[in-house]
């Protein structure tokens, strides 16, 4: 998958020296970083759905621990595991194989780390909304697929958003998508001017709050309407 992307970009690059003012190395770094973030941000999409459909969720409700906290901790555990077991080996391979660039500066490295953590929370809260919808729909495969596709294209996971036409960018600005991959990777590359950096982080936080709020509301009403089909 990543090899495909890199091969395509290499083929394009052989035609022209620079692409929209962006150096080839930077582009490769973007693509690799996007790929690495995607692979560690991948979450278990059907955990709640399976519990709702099998009725096991009723026993989760009885346990003396907040169900949402349990789900969050579960995903955090997966994240830590993935960082240790997948990210570090993959990072070494990518630096050796693709010639990935180091962070633009020390401060951009720090901003990247902070922003990546916020990005995870944005994605988590967005996913949580989709997961919660299984209380109403029971099957969420199509919703999850549509959401994944939307994230793929609008968050800049596959393609840097500076390749997008302006009118799509204007729409994306009103969505949480670019906070997920585009913001942290741009910070890593030093593509965002220093005075806008804080603004970007604040935007991520605002989206976390909004998405968390929606998730909270859904959680409340789901609690009221939970129907267990057998068990």
């Amino acid at each position: 998958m990543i090899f495909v992307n890199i091969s395509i970009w290499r083929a394009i690059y052989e035609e022209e020296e620079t692409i929209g003012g962006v150096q080839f190395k930077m582009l490769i770094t973007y693509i690799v970083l996007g790929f690495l973030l995607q692979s560690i941000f991948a979450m278990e999409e059907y955990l709640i759905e399976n519990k709702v459909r099998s009725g096991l969720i009723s026993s989760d409700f009885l346990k003396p621990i907040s169900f949402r906290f349990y789900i969050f901790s579960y995903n955090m555990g997966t994240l830590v595991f993935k960082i240790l077991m997948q990210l570090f080996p993959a990072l070494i391979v990518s630096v050796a194989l693709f010639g990935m660039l180091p962070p633009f500066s020390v401060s951009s490295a720090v901003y990247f780390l902070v922003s990546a953590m916020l990005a995870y929370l944005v994605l988590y809260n967005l996913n949580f909304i989709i997961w919660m919808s299984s209380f109403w729909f029971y099957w969420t495969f199509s919703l999850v697929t549509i959401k994944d596709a939307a994230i793929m294209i609008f968050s800049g996971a596959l393609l840097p958003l500076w390749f997008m036409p302006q009118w799509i960018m204007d729409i994306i600005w009103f969505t949480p998508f670019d906070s997920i991959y585009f913001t942290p990777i741009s910070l890593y590359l030093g593509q965002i001017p220093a005075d806008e950096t804080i603004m970007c982080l604040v935007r991520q936080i605002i989206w976390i709050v909004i998405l968390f709020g929606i998730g909270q509301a859904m959680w409340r009403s789901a609690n009221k309407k939970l129907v267990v089909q057998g068990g």
Partner: protein
Amino acid sequence: METKGTNKIAEFIYLFFIYSKLNTKIMLEYKLDRFLLAFAVFFREIISVVVMVLILTRFVHIKGWEMNEMLFLYSFLFLSYSLFIFFFTGIRDFDDMVYNGEFDRFLIRPLGLMFQIISSRIDYCATVGHGAVGIILLLHTAGSAGIEWNARNLLYYITALIGGAIIQASLFMLSSCFSFWAVKTTNLRNLIFFNSRRFAGYPISFYPAVIQKMLIFIVPFAFVSYFPAQFFLRKPDIEMFWSGYLYLTPVVGAAMFALVYAFWRLGLKSYSSSGNSMY
């Protein structure tokens, strides 16, 4: 003997029709869900096309390929996959049948195993999802890529699509053969099939030589999209390959299917039930 043979074929067609009717009924049971599913598949697949278009609008062409021509090449991938899913969903889901014990029921019925596997499932959602993307791409590019649609080309086009569908069916069957020994083979299949499929969306001349060889000789996706498209377009990079490849799609399909079928028969001998039949 003669009449018995024709009767048998008529019987198969009749049974296939019954199976299709059942599958359609299953699908219509959850109309909204299935509609959403088809839409989701469509949306997921069109994303890769959109990415391609977005990359290419910046450049007039890559290695002599223009956008319309690349989209024409891409349409082969979607249409042949759609065709494959329409006829051979059973092969796609075969490891599932082994896993949940459904295959055990087939073994005790007085009917050909392959026939039962193939006709027992149809996934209309994936057919429609992939097919819609393919048709949109084809309609968009059939005229503008400068292709003359005479009878000879049309015949080639249809043969290439069928050949491509059979190549993909063979690849799926190959991976599901391993479910005789390993029960669950989804990961293996994703590794073999979907990764190579991503490569095949672009002209294979873009890739390093190793990957080109792999797509021709090991996982022959080049015959699903690149060579059929080249038959019509004749871009200069065809010089890199033997020109006979252009006509080999159906041959590769038939040969692969025969090979994989023999392998499948071999695997069948060592089949032992997974023991979790739920029916």
